[in-house]
């Protein structure tokens, strides 16, 4: 049996396990409710902005461009995404921000739980440890991707019914924003699965996952803050410090860039998180007693 078949079988089982578990259902409901509320807030903000700028479409567009530039520090990117519907853009931010939380809560016990209960022993005689790890990671990633899709469908649906976006915008911007969120979530899922494989007690895996995610968030936040402060002092936006690249969410601007090169680089780096975690996780599981 090829490793790919093993990975597929384990990933499908992991997806089924997570979807069906009480934790998965509860998190799904909470996320969808949160998404609905956020969607309404986003739409209401857009409604307010539109009302203020109703008389002057150019003023409205400029407002959005300025906001985007402030957030990304990149004038070209700001001009590009200013053409995207505000609701969808805000929603991307929310899903990307929610991704690590969702990944941590759903994925912390993916492997640690099965190590603790020794359920992994039923799989260990039938699949390579590397396939087991990869299947667990991909199963978690697939679940998060599905939750994000549900959030987008819900929120986009609200924006569509309010007339703030068109079907065409959903098919282009909506799809792209979802994919951006999914790619970023992959890096978070990789880190969470690696942490889960490192511990036998799920509660320790949970706390460590949160600690690691918080450390990465600090890297991103401090990096962004120092970049912004330098820009304020010098009036020129410099490149992000190296540690900002450790924070997966920091790649959202690159992924949204009109430059294909930048977007592809971001995809490659984020997939690099996944591949690195798979290599490390497989080696870890291969060496450890189960």
């Amino acid at each position, binding site marked *: 049996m090829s490793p790919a078949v093993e990975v597929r*079988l384990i990933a499908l089982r992991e997806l089924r396990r997570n979807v069906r578990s009480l934790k998965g259902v509860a998190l799904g409901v909470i996320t969808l409710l949160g998404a609905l509320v956020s969607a309404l807030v986003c739409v209401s903000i857009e409604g307010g902005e539109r009302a203020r700028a109703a008389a002057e479409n150019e003023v409205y567009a400029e407002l959005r461009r300025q906001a985007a530039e402030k957030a990304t520090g990149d004038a070209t990117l700001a001009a590009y995404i200013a053409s995207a519907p505000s609701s969808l853009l805000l929603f991307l931010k929310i899903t990307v921000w929610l991704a690590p939380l969702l990944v941590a809560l759903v994925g912390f016990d993916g492997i640690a739980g099965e190590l603790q*209960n020794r359920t992994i022993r*039923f799989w*260990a*005689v*039938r699949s390579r440890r590397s396939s087991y790890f990869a299947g667990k990671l991909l199963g978690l990633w697939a679940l998060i991707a599905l939750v994000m899709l549900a959030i987008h469908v819900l929120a986009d649906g609200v924006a569509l019914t309010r007339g703030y976006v068109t079907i065409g915008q959903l098919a282009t911007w909506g799809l792209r924003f979802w994919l951006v969120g999914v790619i970023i979530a992959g890096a978070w899922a990789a880190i969470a699965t690696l942490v889960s494989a490192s511990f036998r007690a799920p509660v320790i895996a949970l706390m460590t996952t949160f600690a690691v995610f918080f450390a990465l968030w600090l890297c991103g936040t401090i990096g962004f803050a120092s970049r912004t402060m330098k820009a304020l002092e010098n009036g020129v936006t410099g490149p992000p410090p190296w540690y900002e690249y450790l924070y997966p969410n920091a790649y959202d601007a690159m992924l949204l860039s009109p430059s294909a090169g930048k977007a592809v680089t971001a995809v490659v780096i984020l997939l690099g998180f996944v591949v690195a975690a798979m290599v490390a996780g497989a080696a870890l599981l291969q060496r450890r007693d189960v």
Partner: protein
Amino acid sequence: MQGAAAVRVERVSKRFGPKTAVDGVTFGIDVGSVHGLIGPNGAGKTTIFSMLAGYLQPSEGVVEVLGLAPKSVDGLRARLGVLPQDALLPPGDTVGEFLVDMARLQDIPAAKAETCAREALDEISGKDWWGQRCGSLSHGMAKRVALAQAFLGAPEVVLLDEPTAGLDPRVAFEVRQLVAAKKGRCTILVSSHNLQELESLCDGAVVLDRGRVVASGTMSELTAANEQVRVLVAQGTTRGAKPGQVPLQELREISVVKTAEFDEERLEIAVLFERRQADAETVIAQVLAVLLRNQVRISGVTKGRGLERRVMDLT
């Protein structure tokens, strides 16, 4: 194939920090035999099982199953079945899903996986459990489902770690029947605290104590069943030549008998005989003839010392 080693354990040690759980253990199991792994708690049985299943890496030595390292998943896929002692079934999966997943990972085609899983479940009398969540099964039911996955797809070697532990007598009996039915169809290594169970099931055994092998061999060798006969006599029986007393001298005069002793405390006559000259059944006939002629009241007869007593002596 008979005589080839299905399992080979050579000078294997396993240490957990400063503690040595298994210390230089060596034994082999022939293809097609049923072998027992015996020992008190902490003897290292489960550690050896875990190394044979690839769950644990030996600190030293060589472990092979069907000539392969236990972690060679691809080489041993569907050829090795394992019943882990303390592994929980996935609580959220239904029994059917779990068994089908296991079958699929054994490279059984999707079209046949369900049939195969249902057959395995049927063998443990659990066909009604197909749609039940594993988390809702009782201990006995879960153990039997775990047993079904161990025998799924007719593997060549099956490792059973405490298959009847914690089961009620009826279910334990059914499990023993199932294992007995598999005898001759695959190589089975079974560990258990129930020595009577092992004595009836196994062709041979390895006795462990504190991580070391203290005895190993065929069941006849271990219990001395082919060189010793034991006769239990009624309460109040003493040695002597009068009617109703144990005539030790007369027993010793039987041509094939090497020694005959009477333990008055245990009320047991132990007769050691020359195994090349007679089999146990012939000796039993001769010994009983002498005892009956002397009107000794007999409570029971056994060949050898019995595995339980042998293990008690060794550990």
